[in-house]
């Protein structure tokens, strides 16, 4: 298509009207960039419309110029006092419009910045949440253990045997909860001093006449067991319980010099 044919198509008139879509506008822009004759044509069309619309306007009073100018330059950066009512030729609705626009802008900026702050806050909270989640899980399992302990302590089927401190450690105390149905013993070792390195508490079920000790287990992993409640199984017969301190791994028979606690059923 020649430039003349392009001009004759009538697209440039529609361009100046503002009747074209984005891709058509782009096309005209490209043609105008390339060809001076098209730029000329656009300007003449524009001029004719400018003259036409001007010619049909009512007489333009000079006061409009003053009012607009005053408004534009008085409402710019320098702070202006509120105009007296009789001077305010521009209606309140116009101020409201601008106030709304400014508010909107301020709001946009505020929320943008707020958004930035929020983003970092969200990141912090996420980290916090992971931490809390871990803590929660830990607490949950701890709570479970505590409940288990409570269940043991409250269980009416359990025979409670307090073990008192002996010569080797007069202040030591322990408690044994013995469920004779399930043959399980729970030893509460919270009142025992922490065993030295390389040593372990060993629990004995005793028959008194004649005195016959039977090892029922070790209080292993003393440091890891936070509640210091140790379950021991298969305790069928006992008239008393005793706890001795033995070398790691336990002994075949109790070292009586190291008898820490003892209690009769």
């Amino acid at each position: 298509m020649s430039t003349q044919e392009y001009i004759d198509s009538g697209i440039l008139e529609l361009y100046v009207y503002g009747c074209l879509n984005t891709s058509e506008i782009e096309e005209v822009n490209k043609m105008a960039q390339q060809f001076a004759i098209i730029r000329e044509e656009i300007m003449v069309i524009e001029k004719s419309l400018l003259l036409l619309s001007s010619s049909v306007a009512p007489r333009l009073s000079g006061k409009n110029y003053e009012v607009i100018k005053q408004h534009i330059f008085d409402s710019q950066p320098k702070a202006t006092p509120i105009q007296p009512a009789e001077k305010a030729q521009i209606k309140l609705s116009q101020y409201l419009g601008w106030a709304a626009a400014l508010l909107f802008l301020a709001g946009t900026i505020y929320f943008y910045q707020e958004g930035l702050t929020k983003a970092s806050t969200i990141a912090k909270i996420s980290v916090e949440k992971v931490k809390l989640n871990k803590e929660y899980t830990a607490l949950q399992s701890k709570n479970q253990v505590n409940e288990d302990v409570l269940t043991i302590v409250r269980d009416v089927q359990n025979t409670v045997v307090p073990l008192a401190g002996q010569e080797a450690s007069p202040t030591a105390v322990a408690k044994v909860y013995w469920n004779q149905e399930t043959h399980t013993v729970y030893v509460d070792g919270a009142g025992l001093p922490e065993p030295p390195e390389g040593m372990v508490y060993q629990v004995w079920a005793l028959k008194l006449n004649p005195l016959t000790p039977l090892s029922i287990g070790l209080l292993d992993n003393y440091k890891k067991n936070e509640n210091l409640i140790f379950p021991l199984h298969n305790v069928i017969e006992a008239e008393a319980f005793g706890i001795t301190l033995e070398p790691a791994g336990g002994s075949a028979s109790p070292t009586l010099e190291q008898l820490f606690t003892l209690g009769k059923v």
Partner: protein
Amino acid sequence: MTQEELLPLIYKKDDKAFTILYDTYAKSLLGVISAFLKDQEEAEDALQEAFIIIWKNIETYDESKGRLFTWIVTMARNTAIEKLGSKNNTTNIKNLTTDNFVHLLDSYGAKNTKIDTIGIQEFVKKLKPKCIKMIDLLFFKGFSQQEASEELDIPLGTMKNQNRNCIQELRTLLQLS
């Protein structure tokens, strides 16, 4: 002054820039606004409003989207339509397609006759009725091509050609060739 010469001056946004902008477009915008608002005081209110909007938003004008003139006219037209709508007067909106810019000329009467445009007004009245209708809808009233072709009941392609001829006719009358 061409748009290319005008824009750098306007972007300075000083007194001089405003005066140039006003001198170039105010009358034309009042003409477009008057196509919607017959009451002169209302039209002038809208002109003031539109100019303030244009001035404050001039930086958002994007040359790749069309002519400055087109952008400015659109802003003024929108202001007028908004004002017309806010009056909530449905008859006004209905009258939009029956009135046209030549009727405006007849409505002013002697007191409003403008010496500087008397000649042009005489030429404008010589435009073919079909052309007056077409230019009125597409330019003054801001109809889309589709809307105008339906209103005029002619196909889009035909309208495009006829419109070109109408503007040619206007240019001849205005001695702009």
